[in-house]
């Protein structure tokens, strides 16, 4: 079998399939499916749901609806906040046999700074020196942001650059920046993030959409708008990864509608070193593991190497 392991900055992954932030609660899975989930996770690195500084109730229900070829959600970064994460979740997550990527979200640069600082302290305490090989950070820069006047920090190249510079100064571990696709030029934002010191780019987050209640003809979601994900957005996500691969040297974590091994091949061909399973994991919580196996078979069958596949779509036939 092909060796699927991959180095993502200081993290070593057994294979290139991980989960998308906010779409897999691994301890819940273990409760339902048994301890093997924690012993042999389906993902090669576990990405946490986005952690915010304060506890957040999230958006009023309903929060999800299926759409043509996908789904929309308006969870709204609900969660118990940083303190609970550090005390209750972090120690358990560090017990997983795979690296951890902690997704964080702030409503200002200051908030990101505080969270990153606290996480670094906690990791040093819990793991010691070697924590850098165990855990990385993913900046979710799609949260609404009052300061910049933008919809979010991630929709402004300058704000993005400033944020990443600030965090880069204090955070010595893997620094992933997860981009929002609700921009005119995602490659420009990616470039800003990488010049400011990001080690890797995750693309993409959800696309802002709205669904209408069939009966009342009012917005269906409690939050009015939500984020579109799933196969419906795959062509849009592939385009973003393709453009980013041309724009930045840093490795790309590709996602958006991945549901089959063909999707994995497509994302890698467009330039993703690592891929993440999001909403398609809702219908099969073990999908990431299945895809890793299938990827090995597919590479074999096609006589392709990982290096040969990476960015193939950019090279002439």
């Amino acid at each position, binding site marked *: 079998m092909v060796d699927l392991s991959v180095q993502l900055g200081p993290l070593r992954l057994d294979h290139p399939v991980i989960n998308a932030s906010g779409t897999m609660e691994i301890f819940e899975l273990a409760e339902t499916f048994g301890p093997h989930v924690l012993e042999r996770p389906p993902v090669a690195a576990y990405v946490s749901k986005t952690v915010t500084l304060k506890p957040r*109730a999230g958006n009023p229900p309903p929060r999800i609806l299926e759409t043509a070829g996908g789904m929309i959600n308006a969870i709204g970064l609900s969660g118990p906040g940083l303190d609970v994460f550090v005390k209750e979740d972090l120690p358990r997550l560090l017990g997983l046999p795979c690296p951890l990527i902690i997704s964080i979200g702030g409503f200002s640069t200051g908030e990101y700074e505080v969270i990153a600082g606290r996480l670094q302290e906690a990791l040093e305490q819990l793991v010691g020196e070697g924590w850098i090989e165990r855990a990385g950070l993913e900046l979710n820069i799609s949260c609404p942001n009052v300061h910049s006047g933008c919809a979010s920090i991630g929709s402004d190249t300058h704000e993005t650059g400033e944020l990443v510079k600030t965090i880069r100064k204090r955070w010595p571990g893997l620094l992933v920046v997860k981009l929002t696709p609700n921009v005119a030029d995602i490659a420009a934002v990616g470039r800003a993030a990488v010049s400011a010191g990001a080690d890797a780019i995750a693309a993409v987050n959800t696309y802002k959409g709205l669904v209408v209640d069939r009966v009342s003809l009012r917005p269906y979601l409690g939050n009015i708008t939500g984020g579109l994900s799933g196969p419906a957005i795959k062509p849009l996500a592939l385009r973003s990864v393709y453009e980013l691969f041309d724009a930045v040297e840093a490795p790309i974590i590709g996602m958006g509608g991945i549901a089959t091994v063909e999707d994995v091949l497509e994302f890698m061909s467009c330039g993703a070193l690592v891929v993440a399973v999001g909403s398609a994991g*809702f219908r099969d919580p*073990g999908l990431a593991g299945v895809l890793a196996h299938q990827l090995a078979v597919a590479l074999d069958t096609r006589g392709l190497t990982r290096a040969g596949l990476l960015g193939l779509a950019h090279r002439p036939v």
Partner: protein
Amino acid sequence: MKDGSNDTIEEAHWASDYRMLGSVLNNEPQGLMARLEVEVPGWRSAEPGQFALLQAGSSRCFLARAVSVADEVGARVSFLIAPVGEGTRELCALNGGDMVWVVGPLGRGFDVDALVISRGRAVIVAGGAGVAPFPLLLARMARRHRALFSRPVGEGPGGPQASTLEVLVLLGFRDALQAEASTLLREVAALACESGLRCRVEVAIEDGLRGPAEKVTDLLIRHLRSGDRVAVCGPTPMAEAVWSICASKPDVRAWFSLETGMACGVGSCHGCLITLADGSDARVCKDGPVFLGEAVFGG
């Protein structure tokens, strides 16, 4: 090497430990609902009130749909499904031999012991498609009751009087056709009677065409006694009405199986969150779908 063992290895790449591929044994209409019997290799026994995520093998939908386990015999699992939208219509249209994806059993079901070990009666209240989880509940209540009480007089925890547990099944349907969805439940009730439960089924039909126009809540008002233990499943307005009837009698405890939109069914997506009476959040898929009435509607 193209032999069986190799095929099995190939298969292993495609199967996950989380989702099973079932095969439809039988699909028979029960009124407007379909009773889908599925052979699910790897199925672990369900608690009554638990559900599974089902998706037709040839589904046009992106996500699977939550469906209560209606009955099970080993790996032969029955579901009662009302065709309300695209996902359930696909499931209702499956034929014998068709494939169906199954994740489950999921969630927390009914507290069988609390229903069986009780001084009052056990009352099951179901509206429309809410009948689905109750065949399994009734079967498990009968089994548990037998395990606890079918011993020589005086040896069981509740003594001889407990061995005559009375179960009242109150069902509400819009019309006579819809009411045929109670077929499986009646079969199970008959078996339960044979095995020692005193089981009575009453049906309220709302259209009044072949009898009085009644709602299941009318039946409940007529029959509910203090001390009763109640298991409820049905549309939200019905559930709310049932709760206020229960709350008006002393010493009644009621459990409700709730329904919300779900994406993952396992606690991953946070899409099914509801706010409980005390202001805390709960996920219907993980912390439920069965909740105590007080927790949902308040004391």
